[in-house]
């Protein structure tokens, strides 16, 4: 128990820090590392390989101490499932049996919880948040193992008071973390190797064909090989930090850091205006998402005073501070989602104020606090007589939506998806790593990580967003001719799938698709990079027939295409087997189907959108493959020039192709037997990280804010594995894949359907799609332009109005003082003084005659004056006396 507790944070911490060290080394010594900085690649690759080794080490340690639950559902359920299969013919009864199932599960749950209480207490004594050795038998009260801990504080507030809080750097390690670590480091290592070949142009003077100088020549600049790896290292550090983050604030920090790395990498060709614009766009659009995320953070912080995911025992005194998850889903209420006390109190701020102001004199603070604590459950449930507001619930929804907003930005979901296609301005390894496998998947990761906090409303929004995104992405990908853009839109679309899965309650399905997608999409991107490397163009219209010239690239890419199309043998045929995409995509479709059963209206929208998306996916992927590799070369010059990439590039391709095919295979499971389809494989590993409260409950939630107009409930994910769902969905899935592939083949391989005709027939739709649904134009008109106008207005206001106003004040003051000086000063005051002076002068002038200058006369005057004074005084005293 103690070993993983202590060693995992160290291993993973080192895995995070290794790329940072590489970044610092390249930053400081970059150009001096080898010839033209070629050593930068070695340093960076070494660092990420180190990280990968550490991550896999951590993975093995993890697996050795925590066996994943072998199965989700019980053997008993097997019968139920077969019942379902039978009852499928009688549609109306379906609902009833599902309910039975749920009753059963609940009963089962309560039974086992009682039996396991002692074990839980033991865990608490160990001071760890929740550790549990799980095996197949107690799957249903499985408590996901989590390691949390504290590294250091960024800021602490009100230390020593009851309101003590801090924002700190800490970690949260569960199986999701481990999986993400392994996935990210593995793919990143491959891409580092690949990039060291791909970027070799940068080793010498680089002539940028896309930048034309004033004198008409192409820009020639020194290579920036090391700079590229420097950014990559920083990115890896940020990405791993993001995964390891133990609180949402730290997540936000790394969130921004991956954003800035993405900014640098997209804008790697800084001289290209399009690149720097795309970089700006990416960062700013992400910031819009972060704006929402900040709001979510604020709502959480203001109400709960903590950012931590799990319970963290900072002081090692056996009293862990409660984290967000245990606050939202307290153990006392069976991990059911509820607005925590803090949120209720914040929501009912006015109520509390009323209470305080009404309190009698002399009520102590403790008494007040007790009163409030007493009222909180009442407020939470809206049980007040005059007011049935469920205080705090809005905040809960806002927090969830806010966090999701960040995910929308990062994962390029509608309506913030526009940056991702533009981000293809960056070098292709960047697209492979950052913009398909890792960073954009971080949004999905965060949704998965934050799952316990999302209220049903939020999940619904997530599902809707995912659904819209997958459709938009897929449709645009059909018409794109830039090979990387096809993949970019495909990424958008696949991310939509993941979101949809998560939104529909398919936690494992979503995460699993995240992992499998990372492998095959990075593979696809790297293949496209290899092609671009060979033909020096992105346009598929100038390619064709390349499979002869570059077989490794062509066939690894084909593996990727098959994987993403989700080709495999459906379970209905008895031997469910396929490439990785098959497992994950089928899970998603199954969950959507299961959802559709419970919620027929919205569910069918989601399900058929997903199904349609699957057709389109298969279609555009194979369209891309056929256009690139099959048929005759359309541009002979480029074809002649083409060649297979060097070994350092195609070896990673092969490795990734293997992974893309096999990452989701259930290795130690009993293949083929119904019910235990998923053994000791990726699925179970992910399942091990399923947040508390999602595993145990039946349906996730059925009461929500818009229950007035929409009845929704979220079926438990385990139900989607029932044979009555698996069977038809598997068939439908393979059907869509085949449909899509054959459509593509018909149009681009065998050419008995002319794409040109289709284009002409659907010209308006085609144009609409080519213009990417006109999002950019719309955003430009609605947001960018008005912002500039407002900025201009404010700047003008500042300069013209405020300054004018001040200047007019000054002018006015000067006028007034001018007036004062002319009229008051000169006429009145000066006039008075001058008048007096001139009178004095004239009097003096008159008196001048007396002033003879004769001393003797002066004596006379003195004497006369004295006499006069005497006489006057005596008269005066005489008068007084009278």
């Amino acid at each position, binding site marked *: 128990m103690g070993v993983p507790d202590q060693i995992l944070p160290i291993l993973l911490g080192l895995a995070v820090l290794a790329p940072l060290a590489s970044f610092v080394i390249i930053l400081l010594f970059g150009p001096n590392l080898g010839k033209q900085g070629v050593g930068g690649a070695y340093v960076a690759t070494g660092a990420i390989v180190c990280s990968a080794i550490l991550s896999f080490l951590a993975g093995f340690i993890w697996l050795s101490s925590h066996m994943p639950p072998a199965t989700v559902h019980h053997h008993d359920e097997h019968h139920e499932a077969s019942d379902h299969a039978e009852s499928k013919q009688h549609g109306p009864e379906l609902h009833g049996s599902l309910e039975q199932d749920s009753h059963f599960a609940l009963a089962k749950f309560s039974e086992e919880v009682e039996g396991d209480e002692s074990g839980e207490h033991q865990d608490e004594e160990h001071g760890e948040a929740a550790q549990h050795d799980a095996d197949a038998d107690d799957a249903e009260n499985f408590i996901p193992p989590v390691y949390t801990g504290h590294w250091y504080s960024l800021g602490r507030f009100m230390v020593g008071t009851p309101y003590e809080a801090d924002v700190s750097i800490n970690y949260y390690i569960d199986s999701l973390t481990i999986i993400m670590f392994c996935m990210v480091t593995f793919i990143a290592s491959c891409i580092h190797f690949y990039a060291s070949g791909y970027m070799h142009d940068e080793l010498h003077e680089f002539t940028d064909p896309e930048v034309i100088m004033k004198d008409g020549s192409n820009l020639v600049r020194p290579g920036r090989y090391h700079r590229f790896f420097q950014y990559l290292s920083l990115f890896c550090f940020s990405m791993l930090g993001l995964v390891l983050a133990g609180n949402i604030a730290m997540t936000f920090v790394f969130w921004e850091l991956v954003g800035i790395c993405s900014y640098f990498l997209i804008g790697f060709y800084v001289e290209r205006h399009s690149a720097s614009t795309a970089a700006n766009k990416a960062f700013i659009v992400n910031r819009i998402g972060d704006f929402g995320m900040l709001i979510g953070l604020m709502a959480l912080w203001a109400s709960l005073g903590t950012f931590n995911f799990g319970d963290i025992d900072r002081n090692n005194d056996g009293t862990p501070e409660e984290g967000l998850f245990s606050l939202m889903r307290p153990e006392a209420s069976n991990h059911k989602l509820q607005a925590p006390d803090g949120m209720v109190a914040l929501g009912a701020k006015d109520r509390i104020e009323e209470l305080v102001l009404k309190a009698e004199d002399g009520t102590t603070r403790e008494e007040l606090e007790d009163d409030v604590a007493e009222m909180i459950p009442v407020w939470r449930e809206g049980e007040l007589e005059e007011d049935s507001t469920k205080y705090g619930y809005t905040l809960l929804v806002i927090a969830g939506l806010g966090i999701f907003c960040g995910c929308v930005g990062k994962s390029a979901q509608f309506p913030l998806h526009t940056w991702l296609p533009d981000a293809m301005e960056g070098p292709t390894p960047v697209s492979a790593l950052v913009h398909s496998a890792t960073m954009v998947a971080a949004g999905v990761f965060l949704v998965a990580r934050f799952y316990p906090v999302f209220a049903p409303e939020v999940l619904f929004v997530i599902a809707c967003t995912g659904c819209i995104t997958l459709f938009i992405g897929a449709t645009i990908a059909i018409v794109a001719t830039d090979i990387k853009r096809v993949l970019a839109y495909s990424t958008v679309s696949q991310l939509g799938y993941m979101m949809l899965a998560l939104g529909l309650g398919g936690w494992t399905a979503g995460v699993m698709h995240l992992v499998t997608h990372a492998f095959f999409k990075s593979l696809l991107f790297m293949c496209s990079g290899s092609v671009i490397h060979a033909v020096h163009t992105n346009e598929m219209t100038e390619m064709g027939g390349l499979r002869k010239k570059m077989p490794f690239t062509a066939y690894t890419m084909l593996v990727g295409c098959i994987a993403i199309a989700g080709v495999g043998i459906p379970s209905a045929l008895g031997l469910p087997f396929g490439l990785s995409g098959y497992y994950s995509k089928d899970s998603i479709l199954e969950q959507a189907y299961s959802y559709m059963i419970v919620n027929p209206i919205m569910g069918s929208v989601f399900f058929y959108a997903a199904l349609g998306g699957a057709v389109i996916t298969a279609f555009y992927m194979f369209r891309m493959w056929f256009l690139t590799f099959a048929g005759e070369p359309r541009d002979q010059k480029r074809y002649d020039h083409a060649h297979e990439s060097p070994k350092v590039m195609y070896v990673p391709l092969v490795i990734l192709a293997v992974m893309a095919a096999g990452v989701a295979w259930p290795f130690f499971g009993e293949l083929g037997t119904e019910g235990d389809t998923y053994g000791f494989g990726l699925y179970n590993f992910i399942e091990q990280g399923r947040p508390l409260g999602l595993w145990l409950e039946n349906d996730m939630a059925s009461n929500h804010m818009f229950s007035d107009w929409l009845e929704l409930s979220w079926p438990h994910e385990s139900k989607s594995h029932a044979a009555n769902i698996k069977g038809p969905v598997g068939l439908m899935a393979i059907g869509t894949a085949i449909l899509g592939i054959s459509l593509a083949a018909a149009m681009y391989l065998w050419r008995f359907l002319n794409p040109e005709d289709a284009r002409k027939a659907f010209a308006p739709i085609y144009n609409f799609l080519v213009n990417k649904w006109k999002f950019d134009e719309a955003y430009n008109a609605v947001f960018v332009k008005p912002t500039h106008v407002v900025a201009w207005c404010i700047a003008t206001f500042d300069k013209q109005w405020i300054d004018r106003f001040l200047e007019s004040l000054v002018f006015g003051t000067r006028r007034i003082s001018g007036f004062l000086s002319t009229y008051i000063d000169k006429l009145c005051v000066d006039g008075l003084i001058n008048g007096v002076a001139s009178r004095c002068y004239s009097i003096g002038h008159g008196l001048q005659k007396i002033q003879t200058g004769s001393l*003797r006369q002066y004596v*006379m005057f003195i*004497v*006369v004056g*004295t*006499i006069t004074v*005497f*006489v006057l005084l005596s008269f005066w005293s005489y008068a007084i006396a009278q």
Partner: protein
Amino acid sequence: MFLLAEATSNAAVINWHTVFFFVVAALSCGFALAMLFSSNIVRMAFFLVISLASASGVIFLTGSHFVGAMQLMIYVGGTVVLLIFGVMLTAQEAFITMKTKAGDWVLALIVGGSLFALLTQAAFSVEAWHSTDYQQDLVKEVEKFNKDVIASMQSDGRAELDVEDRKLTKEERVTLSDLQKRIRHGYPELTGQIGLALVGVRTDQPSVEATGYTGYLLPFEIVSVHLLVVLIGAAYLARAKKRSAE
């Protein structure tokens, strides 16, 4: 003359003090007038000397012996000699006699006369200033006191005691000290008192000294400095003459 005769005959007490006063006053005023009406600067100086010397006599007659002596020494012996030096230095033929216009004379005399009338009227208008018998009255009081004391001593038998043992009663002592005070007050019996007052010690008014109001040390110092300044100033002015001559 009639008046004088009548005065002397009528005078209850005619004493030398009065006689001398009239003599010196007449001398002083007369020579002052003479100086006024003389037009010769040299004679004027001579008349002034006599007038001031007589004025010092007047001062002696008020009992201010030290001041009178100073008057003689500083004025007559110093200032006037200085003046005479000035006269001699400037006494050229043209300036020995300078006639003033008659109109000026008339005007000056009218004005001066009215001033004199005013001042004299003021001098005689205060009743208390008339009481010229003060000294005599005081002497009489002392004599009366002596008589009373002797009488009372004889009546109550103190006279029979030895001289050393004769004690005054309390009332008598008070009266005596009061009388002594009245006699002594302001009497310039000791020049030393003036000197002490100038260095800040008032022996004549011990009660005053206790309050912290001491004598004339500060004015004395100021005057000293003033004199020094004057000395220097005079020297400077005299020196300036030479320079301008160059």
